[in-house]
């Protein structure tokens, strides 16, 4: 039985899990859940995740929810050999990854508050541009991490990079400039060059960007 990922391609944490799956070289069946139609709130999906959040992973008789927990589970179960460094087993090294996975949720929240995708797509709202200082706080934190190491949690690529990457990438919905954050920019480029990054992220990001463009800059009607 193959792993099943309940996935929404627009969702950064969902794409973070898929990057982990690709990095581990695992076979996976993707079941797309439509966030736009609210499919995650239906009774069927609630049985998989009572919190109605995407992603969720079913691996034979176990279901794991919460994107970062899914990534940790997949590494604990399947990461062998040179893949083991994605989530190191040494307690001290693992602690740094765990710390950045949890701290990364603060950054993700700042970016989401600023972008306001639920408000823009569902309620005709604008992004919360006034929260740009909090976005810059999170980017500064990430920039400072990268002053010490090549990657988010040390000198090796880890699952912490996947989630930090998909979160920063989401800022592309508003073409947020990273010019003030050269190390973040370079790191982002580094992750982009991984063989699976485009396949996992491009379509979902385009969906988000096109959606934002349509909502925020709708074509003006011309009349005579």
């Amino acid at each position, binding site marked *: 039985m193959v792993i099943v990922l309940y996935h929404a391609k627009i969702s950064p944490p969902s794409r973070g899990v898929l990057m982990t799956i690709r990095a581990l070289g695992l076979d996976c069946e993707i079941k797309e859940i439509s966030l736009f139609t609210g499919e995650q709130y239906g009774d069927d999906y609630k049985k998989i995740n009572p*919190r109605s959040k995407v992603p969720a992973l079913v691996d034979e008789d176990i279901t*794991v929810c*919460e994107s970062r927990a*899914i990534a940790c*589970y997949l590494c604990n179960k399947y990461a062998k050999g040179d893949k083991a460094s994605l989530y190191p087993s040494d307690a*001290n090294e693992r*602690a740094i990854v*765990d710390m950045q996975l949890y*701290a990364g949720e*603060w950054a993700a929240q700042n970016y989401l508050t600023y972008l306001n995708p639920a408000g823009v797509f569902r309620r005709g709202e604008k992004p919360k541009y006034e929260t740009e200082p909090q976005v810059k706080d999170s980017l500064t934190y990430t920039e400072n991490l990268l002053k010490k190491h090549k990657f988010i949690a040390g000198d090796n690529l880890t699952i912490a990079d996947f989630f930090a990457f998909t979160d920063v990438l989401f800022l592309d919905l508003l073409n947020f400039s990273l010019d003030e954050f050269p190390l973040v920019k370079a790191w982002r480029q580094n992750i982009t060059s991984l063989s699976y990054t485009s396949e996992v992220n491009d379509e979902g990001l385009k969906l988000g960007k096109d959606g934002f463009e349509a909502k925020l800059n709708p074509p003006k009607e011309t009349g005579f």
Partner: protein
Amino acid sequence: MIRVHGNTILTCVIFLQIFEIHFSYSIRKTFKMVLKLYLMPASPPSRNALMVINALGLEHEIKPVNVAKGEQKQPEYLAVNPRGKIPALQDGEYTIAESRAIACYLCNKYEKNSENRLYPTCPQARGVVDQLLYASENMNDMVIGYLNVGGVIFGSAVVDEEKVTELHKALALANTYLGSNNYVAGEHLTIADFFTASPFIMAEELHDFNDYTNYPAVKAWINRVRALPYFDKTNNEGLAAIAKMYKDKLAANKAAAK
């Protein structure tokens, strides 16, 4: 020519060996790397990290951080945790922040049990705990959002009782996660219980919440957590402090609003 009796030599050697053992023990004890936990006793994440330390019976030193005086923003603390957040753990030359990451680290490094672990090693069981660690942050937000702890203590807010529905949503989730088990991640206690129970315990202490009519299993589980032998010493002082702060300020805010 110096003659030394054989037995005297033996006695001296034994004495020196005993001295060396005692001396090196003293040196090790003096310079022993004791865990240091920087915390704010009133704060749930701080107390949850301390629960793990006490559950594992680890020697430690508490370093209180005076948030009222802004100590968490001072260079001395920022050197420990650049995000200026509490708690933080120092273990020798390593510093770890984020309460849940601290909890996982302590178990990964120091937990000796092979069965009924606070943080299981088997991937499936660990996956159940990890997802609860993440989900509990959101559940905590729901409950703390209803209580509006920050708004009450640092501002003029009162509790919007209509938002109790958020607390009930969190209770419903806890109930689902518990299922028919005694603990939230299965049949034995794990670190997930500390983080998942703590918002409800805050609601009980700060706002005298006690409406578990629809969730008797959740109530029983919370009581199980409260009954742990190290619960009181970890939590009572901090909980009492924040409860008093909250209740006094809430009353003042209500009076001012009239």
